């Protein structure tokens, strides 16, 4: 439904400027300008010593489609999708339980616990996982002690460890929007469904799930986007082969000093994420 936009009065325009102005200015300087720089760089060429050569060309974008890079892109996509899915499956029952909890104090306590990890730096928390999953870490220690295993399990420096780290890191971003969405649902609708011959499973499928969709979409986007570009977690917990796009871009900027190529990869990643998000929104309807 389009509401006809009446021309703004002078006073309204002033008010709008005061309210939106500071944010708009901030975003312009610290978001739009850097983005513009990245886009421009992506069309430049790298000199022998890593300097920029101002020569517009599309070579960087052609190089991206190298088989090696496509494999990395594909792997990153799988990691991001897997993380999103696992986060969703783990979070849904928990968010549902939170939303239905009569005891509001317990509920607030649990919500705070979800946010507690944010009080510590992400890097530090990821290092903690190195300890937990390490060869002489508590998990292996316990299993050795009980005699279930003789040799320490290789729990770290592989894809599984990266997955654990990613799910751990981004779980709150799924729980919170899911909780917000489920909490808004009128649960007499579930009773109505039961009254209309739907058993638990069918009431979930036909009523609870569709009505939770805004939260599922928001949570999925909030998890999918950062995991797709993640580089700290695969760097610290992954093995030699566990390279994700984030690591690739990072190494282009810091190690290879090929800023134009790194920029091209960043731009491509952004376009891909934007596209995926748009498709996701379309599929989920205009529920958000």
């Amino acid at each position: 439904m389009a509401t006809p936009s009446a021309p703004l009065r002078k006073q309204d325009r002033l008010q709008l400027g005061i309210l939106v102005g500071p944010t708009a200015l901030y975003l312009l300087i610290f978001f739009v300008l850097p983005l513009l720089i990245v886009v421009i760089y992506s069309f430049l060429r790298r000199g022998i010593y890593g300097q920029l050569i101002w020569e517009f060309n599309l070579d960087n974008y052609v190089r991206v489609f190298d088989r090696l890079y496509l494999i990395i892109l594909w792997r990153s996509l799988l990691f991001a999708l897997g993380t999103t899915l696992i986060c969703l499956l783990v979070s849904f029952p928990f968010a549902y339980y939170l939303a239905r909890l009569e005891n509001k104090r317990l509920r607030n306590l649990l919500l705070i616990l979800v946010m507690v990890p944010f009080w510590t730096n992400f890097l530090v928390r990821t290092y903690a996982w190195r300890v937990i999953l390490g060869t002489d870490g508590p998990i292996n220690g316990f299993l050795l002690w009980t005699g279930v295993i003789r040799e320490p399990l290789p729990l770290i420096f592989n894809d599984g460890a990266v997955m654990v780290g990613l799910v751990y890191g981004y779980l709150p971003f799924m729980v919170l929007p899911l909780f917000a969405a489920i909490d808004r649902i009128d649960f007499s609708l579930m009773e109505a469904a039961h009254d209309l011959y739907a058993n638990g499973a069918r009431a979930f499928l036909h009523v609870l799930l569709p009505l939770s969709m805004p939260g599922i979409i928001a949570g999925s986007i909030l998890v999918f986007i950062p995991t797709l570009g993640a580089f700290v977690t695969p760097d610290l917990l992954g093995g030699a082969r566990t390279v994700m796009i984030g690591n690739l871009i990072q190494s282009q900027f810091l190690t290879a000093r090929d800023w134009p190529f790194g920029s091209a990869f960043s731009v491509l990643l952004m376009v891909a994420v934007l596209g995926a998000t748009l498709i996701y929104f379309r599929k989920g309807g205009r529920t958000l």
Partner: protein
Amino acid sequence: MSQPNRQAAVVLRDLVKEYVDPNGEIVTAVNSINLTIYDEEFFSLLGPSGCGKTTTLRMIAGLEIPTRGSITLFDEDVTDRPAYKRPVNTVFQRYALFPHMNVRDNVSFGLRMQRVPKSEIDDRVQEVLRLVRLERMGDRRPSQLSGGQQQRVALARALVNNPEVLLLDEPLGALDLKLRQAMQEELKRIQREVGICFIYVTHDQEEALTMSDRIAVMNEGNILQVDTPYDLYEEPKTRFVADFIGETNFLVGTVLENDPELTHVRLDSDQIAHVTNEGKHYPVGERVTLAIRPEKIFLGAGTPPDVRNVFTGTVRNIVYFGTDTYYDVELPGGVRITARQQNQDYTGTAAVVAVNDAVYVAWRSHNASLLTE
């Protein structure tokens, strides 16, 4: 009133529902009720807020598990059956329409869950939408409908399943007066058309009186009286029922003696009142309450009509209500009585009776009820 030719649709036996409140104390929402509701009957559960109407209805629907007792639907014990396996449907107080589905999908929900063939679903949905006069609204979302229309969708969504019993929890509570009255008639029409048992929860006594075949009056989890609207109004069995349904004057006194037809009562204000007793004799000396409806009292300044109960008093207040006028009369001994006179010819009464005038109040002995509790 017994209805021997009708089958019992719902039978509640010693039904109890207890909740544990946050302080750990037990709240008895429904206190061992027994009730038989017949097929094709428009039956109302009437009572003040918190008396257990909704809880009773939800137990019949299967949305609440009884603490004790049993529920029988058409001779089948359904006490332990989950809601989705019971052949009853509910119209919820706030409609509970599915906001993510259009009207047609809302209405067809129950049929889809029962895996009714698609072609049959379409026909039945169309038919029930016609019944509630919403044929053209099938594609709309609930949010695009008025309150009255949403109400009809909720009704259609329940009725399309051909339930054996339809449960309605204050379905008209959210509508304004005019729409309410229109929907009352509409509901009666629909009930006659589909010919099933409706169990209707309301706290509005007028609504219950005008719509129901029979009414159960509830208070604090108990059923006080089950009767036709006529018997409930004319022959209330308890002070609570007399007070809750309509308006009533209560006069307290002691039984003096019983004739074959009349019981004579000495009121606490020392007048003697006479009440028909229908053969029932009250122990002499028992404390009783006389209940008399205001509209059954004659009032005037001249010669009183030839009836058994005639008292004199003083008008203390007059309230004009348009269709009728209320006169608040003080009898010797300080007892107050309210008389209601229809304003067929208002100037007549008003010209004669004014505040502080001496008047007679009079009523026929069969128009008062004797209450012992």
